[in-house]
Each structure stands twice: as structure tokens, then as C-alpha cells.
């Protein structure tokens, strides 16, 4: 039987798409590179996911899991004719355990919906990527998604206790558990952030976080990025780890104001800081932040007095990508991380690269953890523009890696940053990652061509297998 016929034998008609138009619709996520799709399935149970995986394995068709398709690095795009397993129908919030502060959810549950659901219990799901109104928990697990509030709370992996995994062979396996330190190797930590290359996640036990009793949100204006970055370092040096510390540069502030009018001062840099916690602590912590700002030469310091003012500040921050979309037809977004102390020099280098390539650049980033998001706004229809943007992009990434940084902090490596992995890791390091992947997916059918560059698995490194005992003596 044909691939699609096999799929239809186990799934209902409305659970399989293979019309060329649908395949075209599914060829892209929120990244820039399109892929090739063989079929799309919409399983409604773990068993159906397992059945679809088995059929794909039988036909040797690559398998790509997809949530809302809001990923920015091409993680949900098949590079060769592949089966897209859309997990959007596994969208049940199955059970919320108030005492344990946990919830079992399907991968298709939308991030913000979960927090809205648990709000009456005074709990929320902490990772808050900018796309949280649309992205799914399953997709967050795939990329180990972050967000502004990950500074204090940690990224997705810190909030996942257990996973139900459909393996490359189509077996259903439970990883982790509700108890602390589940027995054996921490395979949950391996699967989170693996972008669907280790298996497909069908149920997720997430940790819920107590809503802070008090929050203070500050907006600090500076006349240079350097001054703002100095304030960030001073806050940390003072022993305070705020819930979030976000920095925006002037082009970004202007774009946001143009888009949403949040009342941000038009200045070289705006730092948004939020401290959250016990009522007796937030004011003194806010004072530490304000003092650090003053010492660094802040030209204006606002502390949101009402919920509306706080929401307006966050609206400005969270509208950043929308503002760029509003201003330019195309954008390319980076996600490197550098040590916090290297922020200023990295930013200057990035500005220099932008100027040299003549590209328009806007910056908004998670300054607290050194996660940069230089955003290049451009028009792909302009001849030669895409090449210039990509050349500048590569340079920016190399600068970040040069100061000891990482390729991606929260968006994932996917397709777009895959070929830069060799800049960070040695061939031996990549081989180790490839072996780990092989342990989960011996036939290489789970989201192939993602994360690791071609040829990462190097059999030359199997030294032990190649050498005879005597040759070492």
C-alpha cells in the first residue's frame, strides 16, 4: 500500500492531508526556509502518534513533529519529503494537581492558555516566550523555549518533570516522573530541546509556579547601551536576580512606539526590569535596581504604579517583533548568548557589522542572561539583500562565539544555525552528540538534518573499535 493509504488505514479521513496544496501550506514554519512535505497527520491519541511513526518508519519517511509552527529556526520544516505529525489536537489540559503544583498537558496546549487555566489557583506556567499567545507547550519542549522571565525561573527544561515519548520505533515510553530525581539517566533533559530528533512527545507533566504576591516593574532610560548594560551588571553584582531584565535600543524603541504607543521614552536604550516576590522584599529590590540605574547614569526611572502601567511596559516589550513585522516586509532574528560581562563589546561589534553591510538593525534582548536578539529588518525583494543579511548574520554569530558565547539561547538550532555548530564544537564533540542522537534514532528518521551539521557522526572516532589491544602498548 502507498504511504498515504497506510496512514488512512489507521487514521480517519480528516486526520490525513496529502493534497499538494496542503503540503505546500505545511512547507514552512515562522522561519525563512521552506521544506518538502509528503503528508500531514493529526493524531488524537498517543497510540495514533505511535501508529503513524511506525508507518513512516516502514516507508522510511522522515518524521517531523509540529505544534503551532511559530519556531524561528526551521525546526518544524522537513528537508526531504517527510511526514508532519501535527500535535495540535493533543490539546487537553488533563489534570492540574494544586497540591503538587503540576499539570499533565498535551503537547498541543497553547502556552498562555495553560497559565490562564491555572490563574484561579494562583499558579502559572513560568516560561513565557514572546509568541506565548500562539506557541504550544510541545513546541516549547522541542526548542527548550525561554522568555523574559527565564532569568530567575529557568527555561522550559526546568519546568518539565515527565514526558511520554513516542520512540523512533513507535514505542510509547514514559520518561521522568512526578517524584524528585527519577531513577536512571535524566532522559527528560535530553529530549527537552532536541527539536523532535529524539522522539515525539505526546504528554507532558509540567511544573506550575506560584504567582508572586508582589511585582515591581521598572523602566529605566539611558543615553547609551553601555550605560544600560553597566546597570544590568551592577544589579547582579548587588546580589539581586530580578525576575526579568530586558533591554531595547533606540531603533527598536522607535519601532515599538510607532506600532503600539506604549509611552516609552525615545532614547538610546531602555531597560525593563521586574522584581517579583514577597511584599517586604520587592520595594528594597526595586530600590537596588533604581540605584544601579542612577549610578550608571539613567536619565529617567519609572516604577509602574498600577497594573495598567505594568501591562503597558510589557506590551511594549512583547510587541517588539510585531513592530518589526509592521515596519519591514522581512526580518531575520538572531538568538546568540554571550557572557553578561561581554555584552557591551559584543553589541558594539554587532552595530559595526550592521553598519558595514548597510543593513537596518534593531535590538531587543534578555540582558539579564546575555541572550541577544539582533533583528535585521529588510526587504527580500531588494536584489542581493538576502545575501548581505546572511553574511552579516554569520559575522554576528561568529562575534558572539568569539567571546565565549552560544549559537542559540532559546529558539533552537534547527536548520538555520545548524551549519554554524562547527564554530562552537570540535568534530569529536559533534560526534558525541550524533552518537547520543543515534541511541534514540538509529535509522535517522526523526527530524533529520536538524541541529547537527551533515557528517557529524564520524566513525573515525570509534578508536576502540578500530584498534587492536597491542597497538597501544
Amino acid at each position, binding site marked *: 500500500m502507498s504511504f498515504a493509504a497506510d496512514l488512512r488505514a489507521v487514521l480517519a479521513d480528516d486526520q490525513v492531508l496529502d493534497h499538494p496544496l496542503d503540503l505546500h501550506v505545511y512547507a514552512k514554519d515562522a522561519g525563512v526556509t521552506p521544506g518538502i512535505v509528503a503528508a500531514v497527520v493529526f493524531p488524537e491519541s498517543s497510540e495514533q502518534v505511535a501508529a503513524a511513526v511506525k508507518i513512516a518508519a516502514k516507508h522510511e519517511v522522515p518524521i517531523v513533529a509540529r505544534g503551532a509552527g511559530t519556531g524561528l529556526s526551521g525546526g518544524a520544516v522537513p528537508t526531504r519529503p517527510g511526514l508532519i505529525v501535527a500535535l495540535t489536537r493533543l490539546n487537553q489540559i488533563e489534570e492540574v494537581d494544586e497540591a503538587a503544583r503540576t499539570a499533565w498537558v498535551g503537547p498541543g496546549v497553547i502556552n498562555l492558555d495553560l497559565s490562564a487555566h491555572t490563574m484561579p489557583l494562583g499558579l502559572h506556567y513560568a516560561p513565557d516566550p514572546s509568541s506565548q499567545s500562539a506557541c504550544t507547550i510541545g513546541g516549547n519542549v522541542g526548542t527548550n523555549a525561554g522568555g523574559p522571565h527565564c532569568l530567575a525561573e529557568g527555561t522550559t527544561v526546568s519546568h518539565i518533570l515527565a514526558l511520554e515519548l513516542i520512540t523512533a520505533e513507535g514505542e510509547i*515510553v514514559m*520518561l521522568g516522573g512526578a517524584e524528585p530525581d527519577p531513577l536512571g539517566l535524566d532522559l527528560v*533533559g535530553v529530549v527537552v530541546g532536541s527539536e523532535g530528533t529524539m522522539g515525539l512527545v505526546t504528554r507532558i507533566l509540567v511544573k506550575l509556579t506560584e504567582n508572586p504576591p508582589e511585582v515591581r516593574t521598572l523602566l529605566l532610560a539611558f543615553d547609551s547601551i553601555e550605560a544600560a548594560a553597566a546597570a544590568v551588571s551592577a544589579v547582579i*553584582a548587588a546580589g539581586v536576580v530580578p525576575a526579568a531584565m530586558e533591554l531595547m535600543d533606540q531603533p527598536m524603541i522607535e519601532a515599538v512606539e510607532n506600532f503600539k504607543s506604549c509611552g516609552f521614552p525615545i532614547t538610546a536604550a531602555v531597560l525593563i526590569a521586574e522584581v517579583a516576590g514577597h511584599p517586604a522584599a520587592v520595594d528594597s529590590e526595586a530600590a537596588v535596581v533604581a540605584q544601579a540605574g542612577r549610578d550608571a547614569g539613567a536619565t529617567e526611572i519609572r516604577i509602574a504604579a498600577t497594573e495598567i502601567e505594568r501591562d503597558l511596559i510589557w506590551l511594549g516589550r512583547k510587541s517588539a517583533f510585531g513592530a518589526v513585522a509592521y515596519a519591514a516586509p522581512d526580518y531575520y532574528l538572531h538568538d546568540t548568548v554571550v557572557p553578561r560581562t561581554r555584552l557591551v563589546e559584543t553589541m558594539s561589534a554587532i552595530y559595526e557589522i550592521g553598519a558595514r553591510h548597510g543593513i537596518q538593525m534593531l535590538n531587543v534582548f534578555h540582558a539579564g542572561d546575555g541572550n541577544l536578539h539582533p533583528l535585521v529588518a529588510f526587504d527580500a525583494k531588494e536584489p542581493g539583500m538576502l545575501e548581505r543579511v546572511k553574511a552579516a548574520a554569520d559575522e554576528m554569530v561568529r562575534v558572539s562565539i568569539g567571546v565565549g558565547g552560544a549559537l542559540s*539561547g532559546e529558539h533552537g538550532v534547527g536548520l538555520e*544555525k545548524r551549519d554554524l*555548530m562547527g564554530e562552537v*564544537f570540535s568534530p569529536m564533540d559533534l560526534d558525541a552528540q550524533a552518537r547520543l542522537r543515534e541511541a534514540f534514532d538509529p535509522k535517522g528518521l526523526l527530524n533529520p538534518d536538524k541541529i547537527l551539521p551533515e557528517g557529524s557522526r564520524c566513525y573515525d572516532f570509534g*578508536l576502540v573499535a578500530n584498534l587492536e589491544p597491542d597497538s597501544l602498548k
Partner: protein
Amino acid sequence: MTARAIEDWQVTAPEGAASEVLALAPPDLDSVARVLEWASLEGRPVIPWGGGTHMGPPTGAPPEILLLTSELNRVVDYQPDDLTLVVEAGALVTDVEALLAERRQSAVLAEHAAGSTIGGMIASGVSGYRRLRYGPTRERILEVTVATGDGRVITAGGRVVKNVTGYDIPRLMSGSQGALGVIGQVCLKLWPVPEASASLSMEVAAFRSLYRPLALLETERGATAYLAGTAEEVAGQAQAVGAEARAGLDWPEPLTQSTQIELRVPAPLVAAAVEQVRAADAESFRAQHRVGVVAAGFAEWSDDRLAALRSWAEGQGGAAVVAAASKQDVDRWGAPPASVELQRRVKEAFDPRRILVPGRLPGGV
């Protein structure tokens, strides 16, 4: 491996190890890798050894070679402003924390760590009581350099606090029991130490009114909440619950019994787990409320007691782990995890000849 190298690196077997093993303390991680490569070729079982403080009862094949990390003990790079520390695995936890304390920072490792090494704590999967606030140790391993079972030296992760560049091998090393490789060097994420802290004796029932405590412990002598934060916050919280606050953190002494069993259960079941260990005649116990760990010490070994506690814990979706036993040949872990086949494959990805502590992981992996 040359006989000369073996001679140069050989040391007396540390206390707690079988005296017949070949104990080696290579000078650097490349040398560690050479030993592992040789052991792989020869098919000799190896046990990595840090401080020997959290080895647990012997499990799996008896080792022929014991690899000490005592020569790998340098602080490589401490960046207080980045809240990161790069340190070699053989460094003592107490030394490292003393260094960090000078800048009022901490790696939030176990509170009682006399003689323990950084690498040993990570490989044993040990977390401190403060995990309630800061999360378990595995949350803070940003980068590792490891010598794998077949003698490759690999690095994964990065020296930044947020990173999805490649698979999270650093986290995988936590609790790996030395079965994947010998940890040579790690980068740890640090936390600032809050300005004030206090210990509050109180009833377990009153724990719930506290916001973000460091730890909520119960022992055979009563319950204590540990708080940290700004001075106003600590004083305010103490006042609100009406408990007398002792400045500083007076952690309970570690268990000393020759038989120790650790129950790991979903957090709401800690009170029930405490009842279980009391009923099993525990001399002493350390219960971590809202975390789910209850460690108990017993005067003597009893197979029946382990079976009863294990049957209860596993019935609750948890586990009963033997941390120390006065008897040989005990089943340290109990029922293996559902993912045991994947666990075996992952081990072999790092240690294809299965020479590193074979059978030490749950399920005989």
C-alpha cells in the same frame, strides 16, 4: 597504556574501595581518557572516584580499575559578574564554596559536603536542601568536559547561563553514576547569597503560609523552615507565622546510620512518607517538604523493611533508594524505569564496551 604510566599514576586505593583494585590518579583528563581507552580494549571494569562520599552500596560488576580525579582540582575560571564558575571535577565542594562565599555567591551544592568533590556530587546526582528554592544541582551545570568510556574527550554545553546549542549532555551527566564517562571539568551557574537568612522552628502545617522558602525540613526532632532574602522579607515572614527566628541556617546534621534509605515521592506525599519511615522504626530522618525526598537512617539492616518501604514508594509512583547498607548485595534501586532500554542505548553511545561501572545504573544498565 604503558606500564610506566600505570606506575606513575598508581596510588593506594582510597578508604571504602576494595583493596585489590588498581587505583590510578592521572594528572589530566587526557590521561584519564587514555586509561579508559586501554580499559575498553582490555575489557576491564572501571569505577570513577571523587571523594568517595556518595558511592552507595556496591552495585554491578566489581571494578578492576579505580580512577581518581584528585589531580584535577583547579579552579579554571571564576567570573563573579557573570555568575559562572569553571572548575575541575576533583576540586572539593567545600573549597569551592569557600571561594565563592568571598563574593557572597554560591553554587548551591549540598550543605554537608566534607570530602566530596564537584564531579562526584554531579555524577551521584546529589542536590542540597536549598533545591526547593534554586532547583536541583542539574539545573546549574552549564558545560561539561568528559572523558567517555572509550577514551574520547568531549565538551558540551557552554559557559553561558542560557543555551540550546546542541543536546543537553551537561544535564545528562547529573546522576549518571559515572556510567557515561569521567567528568573532568564543569561550568556551574552561580547564585548570589541573599543578605539575610534565618531558621524557624515551627509546625509542618504552618509551612504552607511561607513564600519561597529555601527549604522546609522535618526531622525526628521537629520541623524547621529556612528563609533567605532581604532583611525585611525574612523578618516579615518570620513575624507573620509567629515563629522565633534564629539568624543563619542551622542545617540538620547528616545521617550517620550504616543503613540509609531514601524515599523519593511526589511532593504532596512527604507527610505520608514520614509516617512510613517512622513506622519502619527509623532512628533518624530528613524529610524535604514540597520536594519529595525523605532520607531515613536505621539501626540495622532488614530486607523486609526495604521491601515494605519500596513497595509503598513504588506504589505512589516513586522509589526507595538504598543510600547505605551494612550488608552486601543489596538491590540499590528497585524497579527499573520504563525507559531502561533507551537508558542502555544512551550508555553505550558514551561507553560502547560497557566498562564504566557496568550494572550500576538502575535496571542493571
